[in-house]
């Protein structure tokens, strides 16, 4: 029972708990906070997988900017309590167990696949951590075109959001 295994289980549990809270929460703000919990747990898992830069980017961009945007919109629109849906009986009594069975099937095949049995060593060995330098070399040499394309995509998104949010005058 070493530290990486304990850490993995704690973070996996937190992530699943956050996702379940997202579904069960009655107010959107609680769902947003549950999603932030999921993202933080995933950031720790990325650290365990030896990708510290991705973990930091996940927290700075995803949890620290995108989710803040969600929280802002929820506060501005004063999104109220989620209405109770009336589930059809079939969905509740047949859908959920079938979905669970499908999930088990997928998990079984993933676990048996050839890549699934590859072992990840703990992220302590410095030689195995993906360094920022190598990552940026890949990003700017091999993936230069997607990099520039995503920057244009962000520009388009900014312009789109500005146009949509402008009041009609």
């Amino acid at each position, binding site marked *: 029972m070493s530290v990486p295994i304990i850490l993995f289980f704690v973070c996996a549990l937190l992530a699943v708990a956050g996702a379940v809270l997202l579904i069960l929460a009655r*107010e959107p*703000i609680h769902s947003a906070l549950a999603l932030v919990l999921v993202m933080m747990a995933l950031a720790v898992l990325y650290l365990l997988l030896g990708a*510290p830069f991705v973990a930091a980017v996940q*927290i*700075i961009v995803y949890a620290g900017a995108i989710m*803040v945007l969600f929280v*802002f919109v929820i506060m501005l629109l004063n999104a109220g309590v989620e209405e109770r849906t009336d589930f059809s009986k079939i969905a509740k009594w047949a859908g959920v167990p079938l979905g669970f069975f499908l999930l088990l099937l997928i998990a079984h095949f993933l676990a048996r696949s050839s890549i699934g049995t590859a072992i990840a060593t703990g992220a302590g060995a*410095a030689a195995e951590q993906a360094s*920022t330098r190598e990552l940026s070399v890949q990003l700017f040499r091999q993936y230069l075109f997607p990099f520039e394309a995503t920057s244009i995509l962000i520009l388009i998104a900014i312009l789109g959001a500005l146009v949509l949010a402008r009041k009609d005058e």
Partner: protein
Amino acid sequence: MGFITQHPVLVVSLVKIAVLLFIVMTALAYLTWLERKVVAHIQSRIGPYYVGAHGLLQPLADGLKFLFKEDMTPPTSDRLVYLLAPFLALSLALTAIALIPFGPPHVTWLGQPLFVVSNVDIGLLFLFSITSIGVYGVALAGWSSNSKYPLLGGLRSSAQMISYEVSLTISVVGVLLLAGSLSFNDIIEGQRGYWLHFIPRWHVFPQIIGFLCYLTAAIAETNRIPFDLPEAETELVAGFHTEYSSFKFAMFFMAEYANMITVSCLATILFFGGWLSPFPDSWTWQNYLPGAGLLLLAAYCAYDTVANMRGIAQIQFAVVTLLAGGGGLISLYPPAAAVIQGPFWFTTKILLILFFYIWMRGTLPRFRYDQLMSFGWKLLLPVSLANLVITAFVIIWPLLRHG
């Protein structure tokens, strides 16, 4: 004893965390004292002088007041989020201080570096991620108070924080290009040496624009004057912490000062050489500088005790004199002096930057909110970007010239 030698990492880390927490909490308390004194002297008055000699026990009195005030909760708020927000704010602010190196890494105890609690390779990036999450404390506090002034204050404050965070991060990238690494130790080591034999190779000299952008963005990020409209009394009652009382308000208060200390530490590390001394290493007399400074302080305190203080204040100030004198004598002892060098220079530089912060608070009026946002997006961000592009160009220029 065996436990200590078998688990050195755990034991040393626990001791470092306990000591650092104690020092940081005391520093927070006395930073409020310093602020009140400096702002008072700027405004031609004295500031706290009644509670303890020279008002030195004022933070203790304030702390007791915060503990004993009535703790009200507004009736229709979201209880969980209402209680979560101040804890989030304070714990994040204190966690950021764990990444900061206060001294050189070669000073060790039981094989672990003594002056930094956690030494990560991408320390700078983790510090920024912690400040990114800090926005939630403010936004959730405004929302859960269920009242319009805190909501407006919280939204404005968090919008201001995320706007200036972009400029903050970009103004620092110029330093990263010069240093070539994200680790704090590498950045500080890259600032050793001298130009023209007497100007230290601190990053503030080539990156002066970056430093000014960083300082402005940092003041906006920590919600200080001139950028503190969201918590100004005349504008929004008290902003996002209107509905908080007693200890929860104290947590927000401490979180604000802890953020101030964190950005000052970051400015010191990135731009002013961290724990490096401005004098060359060959001038060995500088080892006695902390001791000499403390002894001078003790001499002044002794004079003040005898000449000006009466009654219980005299006894209190005599204690302060003895502490300063004792500290000075310990710092003159050569092995101790060699160890204290790094933290001494670091603390001096932080105190100078904090004094600048407090000076600005006492002097400048505040920005209106739309002026603040247009300043952040239309002036500060383009200037930071231009600084980044020019720095990158200057660094690459020799490579371009030689093909």
